[in-house]
Each structure stands twice: as structure tokens, then as C-alpha cells.
């Protein structure tokens, strides 16, 4: 994040060095955060009628850390290498999405001024909705992605035919615990009230993850949320904060304290815990009886990115063999069900892991959080106030 900011700063500095003649340009650059009116209409107009069918000279992709397969020997990604080998397009791969909110903050300024940022980024569904509503996304050239047929999860209402976002991987939100410290998986209720866990648990700083699990524990739905249920649940959370029960609200950074034993249990993402288990078999992941969360990260084309190259890339990773390779490499859930059969050929153990290749019974315990609520500033403000800021 700092690097981008510095780059922007240097760019603006360079503009400044160009002399006072370019002052208007600097003023425009500084004012970037504001005027974005009237751009929402554009996104609807950007129909993929005539997509230029030439590949770009290079493909710039932003992703989360530890979210692509890496060959331990070569330290390179077989997925990216394979794509380049097949298409001749080199990939500039940037791991700079640490949270959807921060990433949005970084790209919003340049995108609002129509500047190229990346060809593709892989944010979570609700963040894709926000980018789409603001007119910051190009539509995929779905005609160039025959492998869309391999996708086994339904397209959400905002994403008919996966035109704006092609699923990359899904992840579950549940409870991670250190079995050396607590005998069995605590319930959400126990996390929030058990004196033995006081100051030894964390929740996630993303509203959809924490409130998704909390709402279900209160007996409410997290798929369609109403104000009163949300407020009642938030009060429970507020009480746990006031009591000092909850030590912190975290992003990915719960992993260190959990494996060190500073945390006995926490809200966590399935793939993280599986990766941690390799070093510490005491770490467990459980989907709460009351229900866990599921969310999907989508590949999307940022305004100005190459539509055709991005579509070809999406088509490439949706092949069952490629999808299996990716899921085996990063331990998250593939949107391509046929990848399980491919994974069995390579690693039957992992292929039978319910956290990576879940069956229907497991999926039934999970709910996807209401995207309208995530993007509603009023809900966000309430949640942020409880988590301390």
C-alpha cells in the first residue's frame, strides 16, 4: 500500500517539477477523491459488443498474498507460467490486496480519473459490487470464456452470467482454535462469554465475516439482513468488547498469535488454518454449529484493463486441471467442481478435505453475507464504532 502511495506521490512530485505550467494537472490529481458523479451510467453502457481480440503485451494482475500456487523448487507459479507459455503474455503479478477496503482506497483515486491501474484484480464479491456500481469495471468477453460452463456455483444477482466477476476461489469463515489450549471447538456463544477465553480470542475486522457468523449465532439470517436484527447482534458484540473478552479485531494477522498460543481461539478463514496446520497440527478449524460464512473472490477487469487478455486468463484458470492445481496450492475452495476429480489424481488426502473440497452437507452450513449491507456506509459506521474506530 505504501509503495503505491509513494508512487503516486513521486508522480505528483514529478508533475510539480515540470513547473508551474502543470499546476492544474496537480490540482486535478489531488482532487481525485471527489468527483465521480455520473460514472455509474457508464458501466451499463459498456456492452461487450465488439471486443478487440488481440492479447495485450503484458498482463497486470493484483491479488492477495499467498493466494496463488507456488512451486517450492522454482518459487514460481505454475498457473502463471502455464498461462504465459500458452499465450506468450507475461504476467506482472502484484500481491497488494491486504484488505478489500484498503485496496479500494488505493485504486479509487486513479480509477475515478480514468487512469489505468491493473488489468485484473481479485477482490471479494461485495467489493466487486462496489467497483461495478461506481463504473470502475469492464465486462468480461464471455464469448471467449467457454470454461464458464465448468463453474459449479450460481452467479449472484449482480453478476448475471459472470459478466463482471469470474469466481477465483471461495473461502469459509469459522472458528480456529488451538487444541493444546482448548479441548474442543468453542461455540460462538462461548467465544463471546466463556471466562476461560477472556482476552484470548480475536474476531475479524471485516464486517461480513464477523457479523455473518454472529448473526447466525443469534438465530438470524446473514443472507438477508434487517436493521433490528443487526443492531441487536451488534449489542452482543459491543458487550464482549466492553468486557475485554475480545482481544482484537484482525485481518490475516491472527495467524501468528494463534500458533504462538497467545490466542486460544479466533474467527478465521479456512485456507489460512489449513496452511498453518502444516507447521502446527494442534491448530483446528471448525464451522460453528450455528453456521459459518462463505464468500467468493472474483477476478474482475478494472477500467482500462485488457478485456480480451483478462477473459483468456479467466478461461485458462477455469480448466479443471488448472483449477485443481490452484486449490491444491493454496487450500481454498475452487468454483470448479470437476477439479476434485483432478485433485484426487494428484493428492487424494487433500481432495478429501472438507475445507478445500466441501460436500453439499458442509456447504449447507454456510451463508454468504448480504452484499447490500456490506456496501452500506450506515452499517459500516456502526460496526466500525464497535470495533474501536
Amino acid at each position, binding site marked *: 500500500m505504501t509503495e503505491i502511495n509513494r508512487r503516486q506521490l513521486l508522480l505528483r512530485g514529478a508533475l510539480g517539477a515540470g513547473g508551474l505550467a502543470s499546476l492544474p494537472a496537480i490540482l486535478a490529481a489531488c482532487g481525485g*477523491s471527489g468527483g465521480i458523479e455520473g460514472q455509474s451510467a457508464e458501466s451499463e453502457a459498456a456492452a461487450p459488443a465488439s471486443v478487440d481480440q488481440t492479447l495485450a503485451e503484458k498482463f497486470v494482475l493484483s491479488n492477495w498474498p499467498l493466494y496463488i500456487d507456488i512451486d517450492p523448487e522454482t518459487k514460481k507459479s505454475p498457473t502463471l507460467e502455464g498461462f504465459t507459455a500458452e499465450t506468450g503474455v507475461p504476467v506482472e503479478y502484484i500481491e497488494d490486496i491486504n484488505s478489500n477496503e484498503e485496496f479500494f482506497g488505493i485504486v479509487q483515486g486513479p480509477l475515478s480519473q480514468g487512469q489505468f491501474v491493473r488489468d485484473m484484480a481479485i477482490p471479494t464479491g461485495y467489493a466487486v459490487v462496489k467497483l461495478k456500481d461506481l463504473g470502475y469495471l469492464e465486462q468480461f468477453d464471455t464469448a471467449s470464456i467457454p470454461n464458464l460452463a465448468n463453474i459449479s456455483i450460481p452467479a449472484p444477482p449482480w453478476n448475471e452470467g459472470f459478466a463482471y466477476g469470474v469466481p477465483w476461489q471461495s473461502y469459509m469463515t469459522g472458528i480456529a482454535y488451538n487444541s493444546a489450549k482448548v479441548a474442543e471447538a468453542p461455540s460462538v456463544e462461548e467465544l463471546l462469554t466463556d471466562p476461560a477465553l477472556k*482476552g484470548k480470542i480475536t474476531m475479524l475486522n471485516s464486517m461480513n465475516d464477523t457479523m455473518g457468523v454472529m448473526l447466525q449465532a443469534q438465530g438470524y439470517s446473514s443472507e438477508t439482513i434487517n436493521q433490528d436484527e443487526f443492531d441487536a447482534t451488534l449489542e452482543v458484540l459491543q458487550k464482549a468488547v466492553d468486557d475485554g473478552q475480545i482481544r482484537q479485531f484482525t485481518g490475516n494477522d491472527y495467524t501468528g498469535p494463534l500458533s504462538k498460543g497467545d490466542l486460544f481461539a479466533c474467527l478465521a478463514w479456512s485456507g489460512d488454518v489449513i496452511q498453518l496446520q502444516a507447521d502446527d497440527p494442534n491448530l483446528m478449524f471448525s464451522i460453528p454449529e450455528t453456521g459459518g460464512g462463505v464468500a467468493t473472490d472474483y477476478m474482475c477487469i478494472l477500467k482500462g484493463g485488457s478485456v480480451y487478455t483478462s477473459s483468456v486468463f479467466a478461461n485458462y484458470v477455469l480448466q479443471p486441471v488448472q483449477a485443481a492445481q490452484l486449490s491444491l496450492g493454496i487450500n481454498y475452495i475452487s468454483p470448479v467442481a470437476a477439479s476434485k476429480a483432478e485433485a484426487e489424481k494428484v493428492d487424494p488426502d487433500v481432495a478429501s478435505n472438507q475445507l478445500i473440497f466441501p460436500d453439499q452437507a458442509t456447504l449447507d452450513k454456510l451463508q454468504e453475507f448480504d452484499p447490500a449491507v456490506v456496501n452500506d456506509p450506515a452499517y459500516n459506521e456502526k460496526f466500525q464504532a464497535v470495533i474501536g*474506530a
Partner: protein
Amino acid sequence: MGYLRRHPRAVPYLLIAPGLAWLAVLFVVPLYYLVTTSLQSGDIYEGFRLTWQWSNYGDMLSQYRPQLVRSALYAAIATVAALLIAYPIVYFIARRGGQWKSLLLVLLVAPFFVTYLIRTIAWQTILADEGLVVGVLRDVHILAPDGRLLATSFAVVAGITYNYFPFMALPLYVALEQLDGRLLEASSDLYANSVRSFLRVTLPISLPGVFAGTLTTFIPAMGDFVNAQLLGTPKQYMIGNVIQSKFLVIVDYPLASAGAVILMVLILVGVAIYARALGAERLTG
């Protein structure tokens, strides 16, 4: 060059021009946008418009008073702590360091070549519940058996103190290094003991360093949010955390800007009072 010979009075203006341009581009213009943004209303979908929304300031002040007070308090404690720790060390290096002076100074500053974030995360390990420090403190009953350091106010203030330590140490060093040894000799010739010499000679002469050091420590410390986020809990969050969250998470640029302006004004007022109390004009000549 001919022009300059003919117009010698233009020289100072030409010399100051790059600095002025720098200030204009990197201070005045951003400040203008910060202040106008803080008076806007709207949201990210509809766009923000300048509506002279002064209530942004009222909202920030009333909703986030605890975080503002906490920021000032933490920054003040950390500044005093940094001063008390840095002064004896730097005094020793500057006055008694001899040929090792440069090396000792490098050693003092060397840890700060590591990036800020990594250093703060390192404190998570040092202060961990199951770590060595907490273990020893529990064994000697300074901490209760279930006591902890991490995720407490202590950890946050300690983190701030540590992270801004060089900003205190370096100005102090400059001040103490320049102290003329003959003044101390004169002082002892006049029968002052070492305590009296320190209080009447060394300390007053080093006050400009103390003044500079406390400012360069306090100002960034007040706006810090990393230490509270990594070493504290929501109960330790500072105004920097609020601004960060308003800006990046809630995407309410006007409120975030209002928070930043409030922080800036508070610091300016605080510094003005402090400078008055210490007689900065006398100090800085």
C-alpha cells in the same frame, strides 16, 4: 549570471524559490484540498460536494473525544518516556563516548534502519503472552499469573516510545555534543558540584535539543495508528485509527478530513502553548 550581477537583490528570492515551490505544491495545495474536503457532504456513489458541512467537525469532536484525548495522553507519556530514556544515553555518548562516539551513535540508530512495521510486529513477539518477558514478569509476581503486556495501553505506549526514539535522541545528541567543555570546567572552578553543574549549565544549554526532540517525537506520535492497531485492542485506539478507518474502510472522506484538520489544529495549539511555556524564542535564538 549577468542578470544576477545587475540585480543582486533577486538572489535571495531565487534561492528561496525552490523551497517555496515545494511548500506550495506539497503543503498549501494538499492543505487546501484537505480543508475543502472536510466541509463536503455526500457519499462515494453520489459523489462528494462542497456544502460547507461544518457539522463534520462537531461530529468528529463529539463522537471521538475519547480517541482524541487518548492520542494526546499516549503521545505525551511516550514523549516524556523517550526523553527520560534518551537523555542519559545520549549524554554518555556525547560527553564520554570519546573515539567510540560515532560507532555508539550508529548502534543507537541502527535498529531503525529496519522498517517501522516490522519493528512494531517484532514487539508483538517480544511482549507475547507466552513469551520470555511476560513469563519472567509472572514468575517474579510483577504480573498476575493471567496478566499480559500485549494488547494493553502499556504495550501501545511502549511501542510509540520505541518507534519515535531516534527523533528524540538525535536532536538531543546535537545539543549535548556542542556543549563547550570549558563551561563545565568553569562551573567546577566556581565550586559547583556535578549535580549543580548539570542543572545550571548542561541542562539549560541542552534545552533547545529537548525542545526540538519533544516536538519531533510528540507530533508524529499523536497521529500514530500502527502501534495501537498492532499492540493494542479497540480500547487503545487513537485518533489516527479513526481517521484511517473513516478514510479507507467507511470511505467517508469529509469526516476523515475533518478528523485530520482537528488533529492538526490540536497539535498546532499544543505546540504553541508548549513553545510559549519553554520560551522558544529565547531557545532558538
